[in-house]
């Protein structure tokens, strides 16, 4: 699917420097990452036509990128606007959580989208 990009250290900066980008940091040995993959596919289909760059980084191949973005647990999804990190989600989240954040940024409300979500606790 062309809507979903596989990013490497060679094109990461270029692809995320302008506009809205959602990046899923994953690895093949992480089962929750595999569970999240269809959600990321769906987001790509829905948001790429709206100008959002949706990409995945295989941290096994791109450990440098994982370290550069302080990814310490996977899956981690980061949403960028013009190269700046707006929100970060550690652990699987339902599609609606990512979609709500993207909708807010696309509507111009970056502050409302800004959040860091870790696995929820009591």
């Amino acid at each position: 699917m062309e809507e979903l990009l596989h990013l490497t250290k060679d094109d990461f900066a270029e692809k995320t420097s302008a506009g809205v980008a959602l990046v899923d940091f994953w690895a093949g040995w992480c089962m929750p990452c595999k569970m999240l993959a269809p959600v990321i596919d769906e987001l790509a289909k829905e948001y790429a036509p709206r100008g959002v760059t949706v990409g995945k980084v295989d941290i096994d191949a791109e450990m440098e990128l994982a370290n550069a973005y302080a990814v310490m647990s996977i899956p981690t999804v980061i949403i960028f606007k013009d190269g700046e990190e707006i929100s970060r989600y550690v652990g699987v989240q339902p599609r609606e959580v990512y979609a709500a954040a993207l909708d807010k940024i696309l509507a111009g409300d970056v502050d409302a989208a800004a959040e860091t979500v870790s696995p929820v606790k009591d």
Partner: protein
Amino acid sequence: MYDIVVIGSGPAGLSAAITGRMRGKNVAVVSNDRTATGLYKAAKIDNYPGMPAVSGAELLGKMTMHAAGIGAELIRGRVTAVLPMGQEFSVSYGSEMLSGRALILATGVAPASTFPGEERLLGSGVSYCATCDGMLYRGKKVCVVCHSPDAEEEAAFLESIGCEVVRLTTRKIVINGDMRVTSVTADGEEIPCEGVFILRPSIAPSTLVPGLEVSRGHIVVDRKMRTNIPGVFAAGDCAGAPYQVAKAVGEGQVAVLAAVEYLAGNQ
């Protein structure tokens, strides 16, 4: 794909599985090792109707055989994530995954409390899943808090991928670090490390299921054992007191009947 996936093989989960099977649903029960649970270790339970002075292990054994005999699929594994995906739920356990159209949480009593620094640094060096995050710490020094029978397996896995593992069994743990874990203080001794894997018997339901409503350590349910997430039900100790077998069994049944009703409504 199963009709109903149950997480937890205590009395609530097994009761749900049994009635679910009787309603013709295919049911999987995923559960971690339960030999360290309070119920399993109970020498004598005197208020389970029909079975005075039964041991917890015997009671669990009988319920398990009943569930297995009636065709529930019993799977051993530590559930690490649950992802609601519209009409189905994906559940990862170990390095496997399964899915169901409805989910019953029967995970038992929630862990008493988290360690200082644990919640703040969750995802920044604190992890509950060695198979998920272990590779990120290859060649690095990590602590493994062993508060579960399967913790040794996880610690051995980390060593096999080249982590330097410090095993901790104490409960006096403080996790240190500003933006990421830098050390763990165990029984007053500070151990520098880059990550800490905390292995309790189960992961808290609110951590497992994004968006699940919990209150004071219990999953919030209505009288049909429905949670705030459609298709997700909860039963037994995880849904509140009293922490009693008879109550858990009853709730497991109510939960699965509500799940069956939910499934019928979604045809």
